[in-house]
């Protein structure tokens, strides 16, 4: 294997860390420079993630991995970073969502707090690290990094609603992290290793007397990840927190629940595959039923919500439920459809969270501008901002920037429609392709939970469509006499980019589905992963090289 992918793996983690550390050296007055660094670093991260995905996929083998040993220790002892198709896909998704949220934040939201740019980079570092690590404790550390950054991002903008929901969010995540630690400790105590591949290798050899303890540890670990994935009944924190977050932060959070889903998918398929001896398939039923309950609860929540932000938050919950349930069946074809669904639902939720603010702003004209309760002057609204000097002026000597886009409402409507179609899973967009792939995989299973999931997937699509159409009518159709929404092109571009990405995903559907099929196939045949990781040798030392 060429060394290039292995270097890409570590570069993806180091890049945002270096960018964040550099940005922290400068105060609030260098915001323009920080924004430039942030955009450059996020875009470069997206390019690196795409290159990684391409490198991992292009080699054509059923399971290809890029393995990097950061400390150059032999495998079971040091930390190991592993990129396979799933990890690379998640990294690409995280980078795209973060880039859109960042571009959206540039005109307005970046001014609401000092360290927005550094926090976003640290958030990205935690996300990349959590997706790429192959070590259980290292996974905990990266999850803590991304959570710590998300606490800051959730509070971005201030206000009682954000601080109150932030307190709940932090308390819940701290408790879940403690459970994660307990689970890791028990698994270490039984298997004697923290390397995920090594754990999977050691699992069938665990003596029967220790197997109960091992299962208890794995279950505690799963509870921690299920809480982070907002699975019912551990997910009641999600709607309040996500609806209170500022638009760019909420858009980034669209990928956060997917971290819990990713960890479950990775660890469960790795450790409890059919080859795991007495532990094969442990807990799959719990994942299926928990996921189905979440899907049902999230769908009902969408229907019961009045605000678009809460509708979107519940749709994030429903998509997490779908993914967890699909994971629990342990069928590659179903997991392939679920991974496709993960891409489309994350992009759609991020775009919707950004759209919420643009739509709500047109209602703000009635309600009056947003008031910050710490006495700071409110952020200037775009339609009221003084045009800077030397700006282009039109015939009426009005500034050409900050002008309402004439077709703003039509544009908002089209973007909203694309997102709504994707969330509800209606044709012709990506959500439909994903749901079709999952339904197709469910039919041959022929078990009660499979039929229940079949029904729930179709039913939740219908109810989601009802909820989205209702909200859309209230925001876009009914307010005929309301002034037209005003928005800047700079804020429209990221939303449009996400909507276009949704369209592109369906246009390239076969290619992406091929990718997710290969990813799911290698997930459900963990032998390749274990061989690739445990077979990696540290590099020879430079001093030792000439002696040979």
């Amino acid at each position, binding site marked *: 294997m060429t060394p290039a992918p292995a270097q890409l793996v570590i570069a993806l983690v180091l890049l945002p860390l270096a960018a964040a550390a550099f940005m922290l050296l400068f105060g609030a007055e260098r915001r323009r420079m920080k924004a430039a660094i942030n955009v450059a670093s996020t875009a470069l991260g997206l390019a690196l993630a795409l290159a990684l995905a391409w490198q991992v996929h292009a080699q054509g083998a059923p399971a290809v991995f890029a393995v990097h040993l950061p400390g150059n220790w032999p495998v079971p002892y040091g930390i190991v970073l592993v990129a396979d198709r799933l990890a690379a896909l998640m990294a690409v998704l995280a980078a795209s969502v973060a880039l859109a949220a960042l571009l959206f934040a540039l005109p307005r939201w970046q001014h609401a707090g000092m360290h927005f740019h550094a926090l976003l980079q640290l958030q990205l570092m935690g996300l990349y690290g959590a997706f790429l690590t192959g070590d259980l404790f290292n996974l905990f550390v990266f999850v803590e990094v991304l959570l710590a950054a998300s606490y800051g991002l959730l509070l971005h903008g201030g206000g009682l609603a954000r*601080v109150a929901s932030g307190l709940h969010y932090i308390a819940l995540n701290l408790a879940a992290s403690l459970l994660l630690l307990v689970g890791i400790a028990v698994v270490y105590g039984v298997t004697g290793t923290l390397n995920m591949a090594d754990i999977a290798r050691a699992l069938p050899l665990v003596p029967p007397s220790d197997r109960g303890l091992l299962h208890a540890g794995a279950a505690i670990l799963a509870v921690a990840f299920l809480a982070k994935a907002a699975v019912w009944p551990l997910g009641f924190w999600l709607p309040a927190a996500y609806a209170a977050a500022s638009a760019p932060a909420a858009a980034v959070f669209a990928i956060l629940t997917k971290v819990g889903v990713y960890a479950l998918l990775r660890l469960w398929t790795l450790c409890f595959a059919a080859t795991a001896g007495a532990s094969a398939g442990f807990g799959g039923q719990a994942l299926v039923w928990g996921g189905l309950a979440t899907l049902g609860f999230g769908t009902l929540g969408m229907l019961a919500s009045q605000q678009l932000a809460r509708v979107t938050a519940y749709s994030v919950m429903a998509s997490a439920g779908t993914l967890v349930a699909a994971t629990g069946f342990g069928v590659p074809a179903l997991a392939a459809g679920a991974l496709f669904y993960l891409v489309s639902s994350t992009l759609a939720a991020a775009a919707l969270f950004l759209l919420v603010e643009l739509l709500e702003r047109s209602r703000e004209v009635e309600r009056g501008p947003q008031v910050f309760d710490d006495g700071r002057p409110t952020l200037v609204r775009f339609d009221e901002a003084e045009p800077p000097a030397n700006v282009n002026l039109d015939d009426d000597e009005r500034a050409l920037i900050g002008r309402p886009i004439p077709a703003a409402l039509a544009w908002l409507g089209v973007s909203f429609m694309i997102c709504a179609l994707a969330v509800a899973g209606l044709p012709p967009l990506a959500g439909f392709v994903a749901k079709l792939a999952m339904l197709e995989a469910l039919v041959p299973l022929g078990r009660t939970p499979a039929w229940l999931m079949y029904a729930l997937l179709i039913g939740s699509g219908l109810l989601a469509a009802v909820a989205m159409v209702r909200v859309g009518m209230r925001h876009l159709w009914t307010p005929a006499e309301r002034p037209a929404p005003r928005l800047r092109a700079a804020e429209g571009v990221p939303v449009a980019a996400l909507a276009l990405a949704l369209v592109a995903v369906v246009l390239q559907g076969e290619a992406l589905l091929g990718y997710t099929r290969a990813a799911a196939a290698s997930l459900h045949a963990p032998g390749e992963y274990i061989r690739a990781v445990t077979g990696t040798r540290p590099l020879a030392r430079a001093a030792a090289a000439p002696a040979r």
Partner: protein
Amino acid sequence: MELVVSLAVGVMAAAGVWLLLRPRTFQVLIGLALLSYAVNLFIFSVGSLSLGKAPVVHAGVAADLAHYTDPLPQALVLTAIVIGFATTALFLVVLLALRGLAGGDHVDGREGEP
């Protein structure tokens, strides 16, 4: 010794869970701190408890678990302490911010119905 350690873990975890479910923010903070102590002790005990054994290898003593205690749980506990300390400090800041904004110390930012 196993009994003492398990009792300490159990009592601290029980007290932590009780405090975590209380309605005042400071109680929640102390509850989280107690829970993290309990978890740290628990991780420490996973490497099997032993008296008077060092985790660092000395010259001339065979490097096996008969002569040493497992160093990895101790490293994990160190990391967990640092991370727990930082996040608890962050929680304290949010607690104070909520108190400033809401004027009370209820976790919901307002007093519940009596």
